[in-house]
């Protein structure tokens, strides 16, 4: 349960706001960080913490697409498919995922390591195409960097190519995209 595990953090989040309900979204993120997705049990528990009814938590949790209500892979690849990235080739990125990992949007690899979803604008239009893996941005993707990211993620669980979520100034180690 969240309460036992993160008592101080929950306390801190709730104390941040003058109204308890405001702590809802941060707490949902906490739950998502814990399990990879927001489970029903977590929602019920959060409802109890914030003195809300479970439907009130549920309505908020389902509204925000950043919150996963179903289990996702250990690395949740979120590829931007909006026009800006689309022009720069986000469909190709999705194609790579399909060929390399064998999953389409909304699917998960059998080893539960990767899952893919095609999402809308992640506000990194200048550095398209990009994807977000869990909470890290990977921008100016090429097939080569994409392979590296996958390999690194599989190996170390992290990848040095991550560039975000911050955007400016451009980190020195970011690979200059050819595109």
């Amino acid at each position, binding site marked *: 349960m969240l309460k036992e595990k993160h008592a101080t953090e929950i306390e801190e989040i709730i104390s941040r706001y*003058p*109204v308890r*309900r*405001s*702590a*809802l*979204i941060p707490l949902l993120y906490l739950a998502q960080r814990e399990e990879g997705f927001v489970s029903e049990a977590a929602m019920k528990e959060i409802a109890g913490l*914030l003195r809300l009814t479970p439907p009130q938590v549920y*309505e*908020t949790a389902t*509204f*925000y*697409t950043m919150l996963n209500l179903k289990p996702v892979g250990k690395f949740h690849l979120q590829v931007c*498919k*909006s*026009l*800006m990235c*689309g*022009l*720069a080739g986000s469909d190709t990125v999705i194609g790579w995922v399909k060929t390399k990992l064998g999953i389409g949007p909304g699917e998960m690899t059998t080893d539960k390591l990767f899952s893919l979803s095609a999402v*809308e*604008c992640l506000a990194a*239009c*200048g*550095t*398209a195409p990009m994807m977000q893996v869990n909470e890290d941005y990977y921008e100016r993707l090429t097939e080569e960097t994409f392979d590296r990211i996958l390999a690194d993620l599989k190996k170390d669980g992290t990848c040095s190519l991550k560039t975000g979520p911050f*955007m*400016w100034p*451009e980190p020195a180690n970011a690979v200059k995209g050819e*595109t």
Partner: protein
Amino acid sequence: MESLEGKRGLPRIKPPFPATHGLYNKPTVVNNIETLANLPYIVGRGPEWFASIGSPPKSTGTRVFCVSGHVKQPGNYEVPMGVTFRELIYEHAGGMRSDKPLKAFIPGGASAPFLTPSHLDVKLDFESVAAAGSMLGSGGVTVMEEGTDMVWAALRLMEFFYHESCGKCSPCREGSSWLVQTMRRIVAKRGQMQDLETLVDLCKNIEGRTVCAFGDASVAPIMSTLKHWRPEYVTLIQEAESANLIKLEPAGVRH
């Protein structure tokens, strides 16, 4: 604000405006980060200094433009307001990616109507862009080269709006899904001639009848592409008709 209160991110009805009844029913001022970023300089160097940059009277100072799409060096560029798009795209962003001619560009984020190459010399300030039939909006300039399928581009944007529509008011909620479905059908070469008329009509019906400005914004891509690149739609539909693909029976016919 609703998100901050832990609720669903729905627009509130105005009045009362947030300035009087905002967060937790207390007066609230909501500002963009861009506005806030400008503040230290305005305070530090005085409003006159700020006003001296750019193109007076209204559009002064600098703005950050995020140039993306088919350009050589996409990225964020801070330029004084009043430079032309040509300058921004060809000088700052390094010109077109594969040196193909420019076909279209969006001057200010997804909700701004598309502009054509003939508008390249339009100055980057609020009045000039508005006069050209678009808006500066968030300052996200998206450039498309020759050969880009404009119907597809409009659909991509529409899908974005469909996804982002909060679903509070009916014209935006139902309209966006309707538009997306019709656009998908046209792109998939299942369109019919009367669909174009319906599209225009629906867009007009959404505009100005929603709770927030999102509804108005969401029809911009379709309206502007239909205005400037109507033949592309027509070609797609004619292909569909010549291929004699099965026409969907409208739902209203039987029931």
